[in-house]
């Protein structure tokens, strides 16, 4: 418990420090020379990086150093005349950081490096998807491509959580299921709204994704209350979406009554499932 509290305080401190430092950096950016900008980012990043090796309590400093490295590498590109906000440049930097932290995880087997690798890899995937892969599709698909990326990332996070079962990285699984489950189910709901032309197919996909969530949460390797909670939330949301879709149907009143019963049943089954799961864990 004490260890957890120390870790929470350390990470909270790191995030608050980073917010202050970045606000100060962006406010004074124009008055700084290029050398000072590099020292403020890459130099400070290096200091935090080496300090983080001193004790496990200082581990959150890796997070600060990773963000400072990212900003510093952007400044190197800007200094050489590139527009660092372009997806291409963002992709190069995030890809390099992904490989760097991946290599460090292989060498030292510390979970912080796996977390940074996942963050770097996710951003790399987003830049690659939006900047390059989306160009293979039509204009409309390009516009909604971020939703597809949500779907892919959600799936990958859940897959990683599944793979990390009983490994040194198992501690990361709740966070992966939290983001993965949420992203995947939210993406399916948004996609249904984007493709309302193929309604019946998407109605099945909507409900299917929720049932997939329920099944996944009960897999022996998973047993995740987080995915179960997400599935229940999205069952309610998706039923609401479907009800709105068929708003002008004559059977609306019957659907409303049905919806009420389904909600009561969903709540009841959620309670039963949670109880069952708690007794198993």
């Amino acid at each position, binding site marked *: 418990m004490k260890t957890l509290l120390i870790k929470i305080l350390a990470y909270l401190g790191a995030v608050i420090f980073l917010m202050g430092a970045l606000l100060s950096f*962006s406010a004074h950016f*124009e008055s700084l020379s290029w050398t000072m900008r590099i020292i403020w980012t890459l130099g400070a990043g290096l200091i935090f990086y080496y300090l983080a*090796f001193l004790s496990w309590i200082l581990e959150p400093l890796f997070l600060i150093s990773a963000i400072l*490295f990212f900003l510093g590498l952007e400044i*190197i590109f800007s200094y*050489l005349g590139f527009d*660092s*906000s372009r997806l291409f440049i963002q992709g190069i930097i995030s890809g390099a950081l992904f490989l760097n932290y991946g290599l460090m995880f292989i060498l*030292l087997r510390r979970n912080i490096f796996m977390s940074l690798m996942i963050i770097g890899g996710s951003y790399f995937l987003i830049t690659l998807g939006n900047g390059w892969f989306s160009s293979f599709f039509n204009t409309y698909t390009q516009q909604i491509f971020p939703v597809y990326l949500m779907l892919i990332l959600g799936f990958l996070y859940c897959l990683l959580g599944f793979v990390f079962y009983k490994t040194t990285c198992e501690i990361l699984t709740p966070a992966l299921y939290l983001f993965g489950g949420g992203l995947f189910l939210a993406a399916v709901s948004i996609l249904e709204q984007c493709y309302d032309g193929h309604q019946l197919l998407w109605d099945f996909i909507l409900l299917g994704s929720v049932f997939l969530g329920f099944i996944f949460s009960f897999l022996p390797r998973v047993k995740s209350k987080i995915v179960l909670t997400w599935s229940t939330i999205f069952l309610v949301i998706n039923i609401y979406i479907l009800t709105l879709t068929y708003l002008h149907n004559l059977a609306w009143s019957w659907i409303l009554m049905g919806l009420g019963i389904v909600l009561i049943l969903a709540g009841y089954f959620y309670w039963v499932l949670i109880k069952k799961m708690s007794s198993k864990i």
Partner: protein
Amino acid sequence: MSLKKYRLAFVLISPFILFLIIFFIALILKNNAQLKYSFLWSVSDFQAYCEIKKCPLRDHFFIQDNQLKKTQVPSMSQENLYFYDVAQHQSTAMSFEKAQHLKFLNALNAPQGFKLIYALPFDRPPFPFNFDPELTYGSSMFMKPSFPVALEKNHWQLKIYDQHLSVQTTGTLGASENLKLLGWVAA
């Protein structure tokens, strides 16, 4: 040294390796976009709205047989010529009379992949701290802030015109129809 010490040593120097790799990638991209020739470019300044057939006749410039030519077409915009001198690293306004004596490279010898764009000011905080909605999306197409003109290749940008031109097109940043790279001048 034991394997563990080698691993630790590598981890300790890995940020420097990362910085060097990124620096060399940036250098390679920049060198690939190295500018060797001077060039003539034009910007169309919006004058006034008019029905396209009733618009006054204005100069329209183009390259034919490696020479600058002009024709007159009804247009809402006035096209102005600029010459970018690669030796002096600056653009200067140029009259048609002077520009028509320039000898241009033919399409086969001309450098490829360059385009003229309206760029954001170069000296600004890195992403994501550089987003300024007022700068990127002005309140109306005629009240947009002005942007420097840059030549771009491989995402590397060379600022070619410091005195900001007013962007009076419906687009925001990036490539614009009122910027034209007319031709590369033979050395």
